[in-house]
């Protein structure tokens, strides 16, 4: 199964979850996602997702000067983002339960 196809659907909640732990800037979010196991995640997708979430009003951003180079644009979850993350969590749990039942025979009639 092509994991990149799977990733598309879950990237948004994943980015929200990572930022819920701690605010972060673009490439740092990529690295954190990879550390947590999404090793195939691409910078373009994550950056695009960050932008979309920001445009959608789920994130706020602030700029932090860096001693190494250019300023860094940090993203943080706002109220709407936390709500979105909560909704995604619920949705995911239901969905994964369903798939678990489908693929592994786990679940109500398993």
């Amino acid at each position, binding site marked *: 199964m092509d994991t990149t196809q799977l990733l598309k659907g879950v990237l948004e909640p994943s980015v929200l979850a990572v930022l819920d732990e701690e605010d972060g800037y673009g*490439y740092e979010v990529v690295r954190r996602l990879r550390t947590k196991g999404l090793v195939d995640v*691409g910078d*373009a*997708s994550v950056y*695009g997702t960050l*932008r*979309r979430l920001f445009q959608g009003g789920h994130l706020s951003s602030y700029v932090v000067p860096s001693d190494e*180079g*250019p300023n860094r*644009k940090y993203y943080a979850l706002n109220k709407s983002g936390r709500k979105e993350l909560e909704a995604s969590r619920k949705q995911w749990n239901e969905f994964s339960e369903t798939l678990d039942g489908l693929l592994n025979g786990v679940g109500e009639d398993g």
Partner: protein
Amino acid sequence: MMNKAPAMDQIQPYIEALETRLRNLPDEDRTDLMSDLESHLREIIVDESDTSLAERIGPPHVYVDELAASIGLDEDGPSTRSLAEAISDSLRRFSNHANAEKVRRLWTEMRPAWWTLRGFAIGLFLSWNYLGPGDPDLLWIMQFVSGALVIVLIGVSMRIGRNQDRSRNWKWVSVAVSIAGVLASISFIANISARMDPNYQGQNSFPYGLITQEDVEFMQHSGITPEEFFEQGFFYEQRWSQEDGMLPMITTSLPSGG
């Protein structure tokens, strides 16, 4: 930070790819996306200074496709691309190939040499064709003008070359000058080979740069015009030995009176 200096060079291809990709968007949105991407890529370069941007995030066209899909801007897919775009896209694919990196670097280093050469060729072409023979007494002026023209054109060509990465317009100007340079070089080579033929009965546009002071004195002595000097073969009598038409011979004695 070893990649600090060429940072913009690394970023530019991505910005350009994005610009092409987003050309259907309103200007504001596009500039906003482009400047935001630029700062994002700068962050990566600072973070990962020991690897190139392309190694980190992939080649520009792939990156931009992925980004567009992720932002949800997929309305202009490959099917709507024109032939020209498809060609430029495949060229870009080639230029993103890992092995092409060396070729590209070499080309970048060689560019100033080409800028000089094309300026020189165009300058020479213009002075050969538009500063034709005139009054031999004014020869030194014409030689001076030719020399100055060549130098000025080399300068202009270098300037255009250095600006060509700044904007699309400069790029087009530079491409046009390069084409002119190639044509001028071809004409230059064709001219030279034609004149290598001892039987050449050419036009009167022979370069003043090749006339010596002795030639001028010869013309004055014999009372002939520059046109006659070239067309009636005096030129070759002056310079080429009879036994071997290809060997230049420096004339030491001038024909007397005329």
